[in-house]
């Protein structure tokens, strides 16, 4: 745009230069148009995704870890071994009682857990009492629960923020990562097809 911006000040004497200048907007617009088309194509094939935050762990096994259980929650603790060789794909969900979007996604987690999908929870940088209260108030969808109060495991996983959810297939490989709350739309458009594919 700055190239054409000089047009009004001094019209170039060379008519060819003027022609080129007049062609510039068309060229820029055409270039942008081709780019947009490629983005739209990429959205169809999955190579371009404006919403997804990529994870270096996709296609790999999760890092090794063993977390203590949440006292009084009546759920077994969570370690990397629990993610290997499950009978069906499992979800690992990082949450915290202080996180507002976690409340928004909670009904969806409850729904998944009712549907029989194993959901494993990791309470991230949260006081155990607060996590307890949170689960008592909103329900407990987690089949296993680990407490990551210092947030060390989260660093190994490359956590972007809470809530964040990972899908791990039967071979124990991370297949999908979702940063942000799981909404009804995410469930329908993203997670359900993946659960069917890796079932």
């Amino acid at each position, binding site marked *: *745009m700055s190239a054409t911006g000089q047009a*009004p000040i001094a019209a170039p004497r060379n008519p060819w230069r*003027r022609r080129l200048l007049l062609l510039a*907007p*068309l060229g820029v617009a*055409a270039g942008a148009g081709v780019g947009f088309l490629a*983005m*739209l194509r990429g*959205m169809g094939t999955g190579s*371009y995704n404006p919403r997804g935050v990529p994870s270096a762990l996709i296609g790999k096994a999760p890092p090794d870890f063993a977390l203590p259980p949440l006292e009084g929650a009546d759920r077994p603790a969570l370690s990397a071994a629990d993610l290997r060789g499950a009978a069906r794909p499992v979800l690992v969900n990082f949450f915290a009682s202080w996180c507002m979007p976690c409340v928004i996604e909670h009904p969806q987690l409850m729904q998944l857990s009712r549907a029989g999908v194993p959901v494993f929870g990791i309470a991230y940088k949260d006081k155990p009492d607060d996590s307890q209260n949170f689960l008592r108030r909103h329900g407990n969808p987690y089949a296993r629960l680990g407490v990551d109060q210092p947030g060390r495991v989260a660093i190994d996983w490359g956590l972007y923020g809470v809530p964040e959810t990972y899908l791990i297939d039967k071979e124990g490989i991370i297949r999908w990562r979702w940063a942000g709350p799981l909404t009804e739309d995410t469930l329908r458009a993203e997670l359900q097809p993946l659960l069917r594919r890796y079932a």
Partner: protein
Amino acid sequence: MIPELGHFVLALALALSLAQAAVGFIGAQRAEARLMAAAGPLAAGVLVAVGLAFGCLMWSYVVNDTTVANVVQNSHSAKPLLYKISGTWGNHEGSMVLWVLILALCGGAVAGFGGNLPSALQARVLAVLALVGAGFLGFILATSNPFDRVWPPPVDGQGLNPILQDPGLAFHPPLLYLGYVGFAVTYAFAVAALIEGRVDAAWGRWVRPWALAAWSLLTLGIALGSWWAYYELGWGGYWFWDPVENASLLPWLAGCALLHSAIVVEKREALKTWTVFLALLAFGMSLLGTFLVRSGVLNSVHAFANDPERGVVILALLAAFIGGGFALFAWRAASMTPTGIFAPLSREGALVMNNLLLCSIAAVVLVGTLYPMFADLLLSEKISVGPPFFNTATLPLAAPLIGAMAVGPLLPWKRARLFPAIQRLWWVALGALAAFLLCLALSGARIGPALGFAAAVWLIAGAAADIADRTALFSRPRAAWGRAKGLPRAAWGAAVGHAGLGVTVLGLAGMGIATDMLAALKPGETTRLAGYEFRLDAVRDVTGPNWTARRATVEIRRDGALVTVLEPDRRTFPVGRMTTTEAAIHTTVLSDLYVVLGEERDGAAILRLHHNPLAPWIWTGAAIMALGGGLSLSDRRMRVAAPAAKLAAPGMGKAAQA
């Protein structure tokens, strides 16, 4: 039955639009008066048809017709009537129908009030508008039919996003669309001029009111959106450089440049190629925004549900209208030779500088908005370009723009000398310096806000100096009142518009010294912020029409005297399973006190408290800018699109507009 009628009249409007385009182009090409005359009545027919279709859709929303898929997805019987009505355009399909309706209104206006245009120009403008309308009508009918039925009908709708249930947002999209679509008219004029290969003063006189109207409405629309974000999203911000916000800012910047350069075409018959380019650009930016928001290629909190298929169709429309316009520009613009010549230091020169700076700002915003998308596409890198980039990159460009805004209107046309202008501005500069030093002294050596206050004083006092100069207030004060009454409205409009930006800058500078804090308070406890004492009285449950909420009562005192009682809500909408925060705001002329209720823990409520000095002035300033546009629009010469001025050559003597 009603939805089918709506669907039918939409198809009818498409047929009428195609006919309008055909008679317009063919009639103008063959100079057949009867064909050209048919374009006007056809435009009226399109307006009636689209108006009827929009009415049908609105009716479906008002009666909550759950056999219509669009209503099911976006409405609910428990919603208040206002939001049922605003739900008509609060979704992709309905907003497209509104878009086309406004375009049809513009077409009707060009047909109805354009009798004094050369008939070939009018016919071509109507034909271009009809082509744009036909493209979007085809898009609606092919991919986004708002009248699709569902059977069996669900018991009730799925509600509207509760965040969108708000009067500010109900009227934000229509205003924005009025602005976007207004630029379709200037675009049509530009294309018609390129086909004819001729741009003259009469053309400039026709383009400018449309650019002014579109720009003023866009200003209001953007301000309303920003105000909504400020009080509804609940974190006290007012502008986030979100891609969708940028998408509305881009046509605003291009339109702002356009309405200034159209003056030069009108008065001096110079800058013709450039003005035509800006007219194409302003509409191109409007369409680009439509594409970015609706195709889902970018990640934004505002984006509509994304759909790549839909995106391909919009991109095709974009290629046709923008690509076609620029191709015509490359082919024909060379034949347009400027007739007026001017020295760099002159009113024209100042307007060129204004154009270059506005376009540079637009370029920065455009690059910042598109760069992450293209980096992702080409380099597979995820980056986000945020406020730090936009602030640091636009401020150095905005500073000279603001500096020139006070000087430009004081320069005469053709050739000017800087010294007399500076002579008339010395007290303005002194005022700005005083504001700068005063702010530095009071706010503790913070350069940013201090510069903001200085810029605001410079703009407002500069506008006053402009009016004082025109009325000779200082040299011959007695007759000043009479001269002020005789001043063209356009001169008042320019001064008011420039002062409006000053008021907005004042608000921005005030927000630069805003303070906030997070407090966990139990009922009865107090905390202090910016000299105010906040006391939490109680938190209780309340029930609204379609939500339940926790509501806090916060008493605010200053020096022991009660200032106000604020009641922020945290609302839960069972239908959409969403929670929103309703900030409570106490506005005085000088500042906002802003309280948001967060979560509750161990009997204590988390409260976020903000003290925002001068915040309301940001949006007041935008309203003043739009008022300036309206004043300029009401100028006698504009109102009739200057049929008289077309006869009498525009003399230099009365060229007191800016």
